[in-house]
């Protein structure tokens, strides 16, 4: 009936039991001082030690085949784990991108050798990866990338510059979108390819960039005639754009697009239980539950091999709007009291979320780009 489709999948008993196990693990970790909850933890909370613990629990790469370190579990099991990690504000940034999208790309397009050597290390929480899409002159206009891979006798020579690459400074690999042949007339999407680049190769320089909150999570990465082998080409030569779009569906549809600030709401409710009008809390519940329904539907479709790219854009769009609404509602409640009467920890968290919020509608596709994706699906662009 609708042009968008989100299959409905009620939570199974197996999912429920997994959820309790993840929750018990996180509570024990927190109690033992394993981590301090942070907002936006999938970008801000880097802890290789914590990632290795999650790997040991089997909660990274859990949907992958067993021979590559996974457990061949349904996509919704991974969703349960990621929801609980985000709600707890656990330090998951080191492995998040590898688990979410790079692993899936390697599984789909990598050589057998790459799968065998990289995927089990990712699943163990010991190998991290980052995204190599944006460039200084190619942000929203991604097809304008100028990083270039040129064929050599032994493979490829890679030169160019990637930017805003979250966790590149601790990553082992980056998937780089590069031009391998000129655009075909007006079709700039042609002639692009993806490469799986080992970041320890010579000719690669990684430098951190401080964000407005004073954190260094993203980076500029320079490639100066880096020697790549033929096997480092990921997928098909010239198919980079389509592969990138598939990767973005994984990147945009998950709960990190609507649950990164939820801990601010929980904290404020715990500190000021009588201050929240039921209508405000109810609206937040209704909106976030709808997003969960949509996100689960997309996970099922991705698992079935479908391409819910527009639905993923919808989740990111509505999820970003929800997080801004949540912040504004909670800030409004807190702001009804003189600041000196408010718990310092709550105010710190509020301010931390404020500083992180502007990034949510920029990373992974700006609001404007997502509008364009949705408008195209509606046939008006």
């Amino acid at each position, binding site marked *: *009936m609708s042009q968008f489709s989100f299959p409905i999948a009620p939570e199974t008993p197996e999912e429920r039991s997994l959820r309790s196990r993840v929750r018990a693990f996180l509570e024990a970790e927190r109690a033992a001082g394993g981590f301090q909850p942070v907002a936006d933890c999938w970008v801000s909370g880097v802890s290789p030690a914590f990632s290795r613990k999650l790997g040991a629990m089997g909660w990274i790469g859990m949907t992958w085949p067993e021979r590559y370190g996974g457990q061949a579990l349904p996509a919704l099991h991974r969703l349960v784990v990621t929801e609980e990690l985000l709600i707890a504000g656990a330090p998951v940034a080191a492995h998040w991108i590898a688990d979410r999208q790079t692993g899936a790309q390697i599984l789909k397009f990598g050589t057998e050798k790459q799968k065998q050597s990289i995927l089990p290390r990712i699943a163990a929480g010991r190998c991290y990866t980052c995204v190599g899409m944006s460039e200084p002159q190619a942000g929203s206009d991604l097809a304008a990338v100028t990083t270039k891979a040129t064929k050599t006798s032994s493979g490829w020579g890679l030169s160019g510059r990637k930017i805003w690459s979250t966790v590149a400074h601790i990553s082992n690999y980056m998937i780089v979108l590069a031009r391998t042949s000129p655009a075909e007339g007006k079709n700039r999407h042609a002639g692009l390819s993806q490469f799986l680049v080992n970041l320890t190769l010579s000719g690669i320089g990684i430098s951190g960039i401080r964000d407005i909150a004073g954190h260094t999570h993203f980076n500029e990465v320079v490639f100066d005639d880096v020697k790549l082998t033929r096997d480092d080409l990921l997928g098909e030569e010239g198919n980079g754009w389509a592969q990138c779009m598939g990767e973005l569906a994984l990147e945009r549809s998950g709960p990190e697009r609507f649950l990164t600030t939820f801990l601010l709401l*929980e904290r404020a409710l715990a500190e000021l239980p009588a201050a929240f009008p*039921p*209508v405000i809390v*109810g*609206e937040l*519940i*209704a909106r976030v539950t709808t997003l969960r329904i949509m*996100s689960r539907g997309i996970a099922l479709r991705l698992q079935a091999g479908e391409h819910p790219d527009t639905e993923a854009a919808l989740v990111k769009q509505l999820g970003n709007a929800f997080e801004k609404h949540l912040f504004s509602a909670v800030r409004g409640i807190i702001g009804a009291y003189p600041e000196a009467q408010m718990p310092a920890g709550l105010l710190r968290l509020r301010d931390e979320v404020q500083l992180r919020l502007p990034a949510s509608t920029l990373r992974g596709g700006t609001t404007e780009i997502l509008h364009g994706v949705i408008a195209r699906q509606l046939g008006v662009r």
Partner: protein
Amino acid sequence: MDATLERTAARILADHRDAPDAAWAALDENGLTRLWVGEAHGGFGMSPAEGFGVARLAGACALPAPVAETLIGTWLLTEAGLEPPPGRTSIFVEGWQRGVPFGDSADHVVHVRDQSLALLRGPLPGRHAGVGLDPLSDAACRLTGSVVATGDMRHDIALPLAALTRAAQMCGALEAVLTLTIGFAEQRIQFGRALTKFQAIQHMLSEMGAEVAAASAALDAAVATADYNAPFDRQAVAIAKFRAGLAAGIVAEHAHQIHGAIGYTEEYPLARLTRRLWQWRDDFGGESYWAGELGSAALHERTPLWPRLAAAGG
């Protein structure tokens, strides 16, 4: 929704676009107004989702006939162990309505007070406002009429059933408004270009699309929990009615803005849909009512929200 049923209902509604009585008669003849009649009373034993699907399709053309009300009324009668009568049935849920929708053409009215129910003979005095005329509410008929039968329902389902049915009608109307608006924006030329070529218009259409998708997902999730033999999942219904109401406001506002003055005329078909959206979002509890119910239940526990949400499922 079952594909054959959907095709049949859609064809009937398309064939009789400007003849509501003929549309009603064809839907009724095909049993589509009686999908929620229990098997004990000659029903077909279809899943509740089929009736919600018909309500959604009828909502998409703002059909001025009591299709949704008849569906609801027959479910309530079945729930009370009473035989649903043939013909047009309307509903009056005490405390939630100012009048009886389509009461002036209803053969019967199901009057609900808490879990008690009385079947009244229609039609009722008063004028049904119809579509495209003031006032906004079409529930203008007074509740009178002789009692044919009385009974008690097993569960307190009248409000959630009526609210979820309105959410289904709204989802149909939301999609119809989006389609109508896209069609208009493609045809309308200003500054030498179709409106769809303007990024500002594309962004409004995209926001409308996102709202329609969200309302529809929340509806589907609530409909999946509906069961003839159990009370409604009140939280799922609250979310569906809230989300459809929220979408109705945004979608109607953007649709009128994109259409310009022509959309503000009685003649043009947009207001037929937006008037219904504005009415249905307030029927059987508006967004604030249902959000308030959700919020009160959550705050009452004085425990973190997330475990409750996760336990309720996505």
